[in-house]
């Protein structure tokens, strides 16, 4: 094959074996994965073992291809041009007799190295295909769909020494024995407590009753007597002021009588006049 034969139609025919998902090649450099791929494709046209390939013929084909591409004013990537220049150089070296074989790398070595690169690329492509066609996990073969992972149970092993035990015991007992001296807490009835108790005790009671009777349960302990009386009296005054409770006293130091305030706004206007009318609801209760 001579360079003149290189023709886009021919390329199209030659390269139709390429994978379908890649654009069909005309003189479309885009279709190649770089100059080495192009060289490999051209080499395949020689239909011989890559080991016996004629690098010279290959160089010719490559240069013709580039020439054809240029005529069509395709923009060529620099890679292709660098390779073209290198091949042109190699070609000239191959055609000329080697004058100084000892000097640097011989043209034959360069040609062999190129052939070796092509073989390597071809081999890796072949095995890449074999590799990718192996049964793939999640595509061809499957692992267990519902794995039952191993659960980690942490079992504590408790540690303590006899010394820990004894010192803790002795320490705590000793502290407790010493802190056993207790200051008796003074009991104080707060105003709030007194008020709460009175509201509860007087409740709905409509009859006059002495204060002492209400507080009888709280006056048992003599130590409480003073605070209970003082606080309830203060709370009582407050309750009277607010109009919740009525109270009266016969004279100084006489018992205090109290009852729930007979409210005129109780809902029934007839009830606010006389005590007689009030007796009816209390009688019902």
């Amino acid at each position: 094959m001579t360079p003149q034969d290189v023709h886009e139609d021919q390329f199209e025919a030659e390269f139709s074996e390429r994978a379908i998902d890649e654009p069909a090649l005309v003189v479309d450099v885009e279709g190649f994965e770089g100059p080495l791929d192009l060289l490999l494709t051209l080499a395949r046209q020689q239909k011989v073992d890559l080991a016996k390939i004629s690098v010279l013929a290959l160089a010719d084909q490559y240069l013709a291809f580039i020439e054809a591409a240029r005529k069509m004013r395709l923009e060529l990537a620099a890679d292709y041009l660098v390779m073209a220049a290198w091949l042109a150089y190699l070609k000239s070296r191959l055609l000329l007799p080697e004058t100084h074989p000892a000097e640097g790398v011989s043209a034959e070595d360069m040609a062999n190295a190129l052939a070796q690169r092509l073989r390597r690329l071809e081999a890796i492509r072949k095995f890449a295909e074999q590799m990718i066609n192996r049964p793939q996990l999640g595509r061809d073969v499957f692992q267990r769909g519902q794995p039952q992972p191993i659960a980690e149970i942490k079992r504590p092993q408790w540690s303590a020494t006899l010394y820990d035990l004894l010192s803790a015991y002795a320490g705590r007992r000793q502290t407790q024995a010493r802190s056993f001296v207790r200051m008796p807490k003074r009991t104080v009835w707060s105003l709030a407590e007194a008020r709460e108790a009175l509201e509860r005790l007087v409740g709905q009671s409509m009859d006059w009753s002495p204060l002492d009777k209400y507080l009888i349960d709280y006056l048992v302990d003599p130590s409480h007597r003073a605070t209970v009386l003082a606080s309830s009296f203060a709370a009582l005054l407050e309750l009277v002021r607010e109009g919740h409770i009525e109270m009266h006293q016969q004279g100084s130091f006489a018992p205090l009588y109290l009852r729930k305030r007979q409210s005129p706004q109780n809902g029934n206007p007839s009830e606010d006049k006389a005590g007689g009318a009030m007796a009816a609801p209390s009688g019902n209760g």
Partner: protein
Amino acid sequence: MGKVAEMRVIVGDKEDEQRESAGKRAEELRILEALLFAAEAPLDEKVLAARLPAGTDVRALLTQLQRDYAPRGVNLVRVGGKWTLRTANDLAWLLTHESVVTRKLSRAAIETLAIVAYHQPVTRAEVEEIRGVSTSKGTLDVLLETGWVRLRGRRKAPGRPVTYGTSEAFLSHFGLDALTDLPGLDELKGAGLIDATLPADFSVPVPSDDPTLREDEEPLGPEDLDLGLAPRSERGEE
């Protein structure tokens, strides 16, 4: 001769047929097995049938597969009307990994343990009184978990509180031959753990872990057995 040869042929055919049918069945079982293995959830018979050659008796295949797997480490089980492969129930322990973590008892737990040891049988309220602070339920739970403290019985008193005591594991962990080996007041003083300036009536009881219930104790009821005596794993599943 002719007859014998003929018979042989017939027998041969039958064998071939049987072999063929057995081969077909084996292949169907393989498919079933692979489907069930790879499935992300249990599969129902309809789904399985759709993947098998038309006219396959899926139920019969499943029954055979179930029988094949029965003695194995993996079983074919039916859950909610669907089929799935599971590790055999008796091998569930394989799927848990127990690791031992050493943990130190809290100060409160050690104090409580010491009080239980010296004052047993003792109720929680009594422990609190001796410690002078309230004891959380958790502290006693931890002690029950260590296996050093056990429920003894209930005190014959209002509320029937549980009484606690120490176990044999307690003795073995702390290297005690008997509970009476626990040092008394004089020994504690001698060891410098208690100093001399204590009230005259201060005493340390002579401990006893005699398992016989005391007069003021009564046995635990069956309702107590769920409290902390059941193995942890079962409690965990609740």
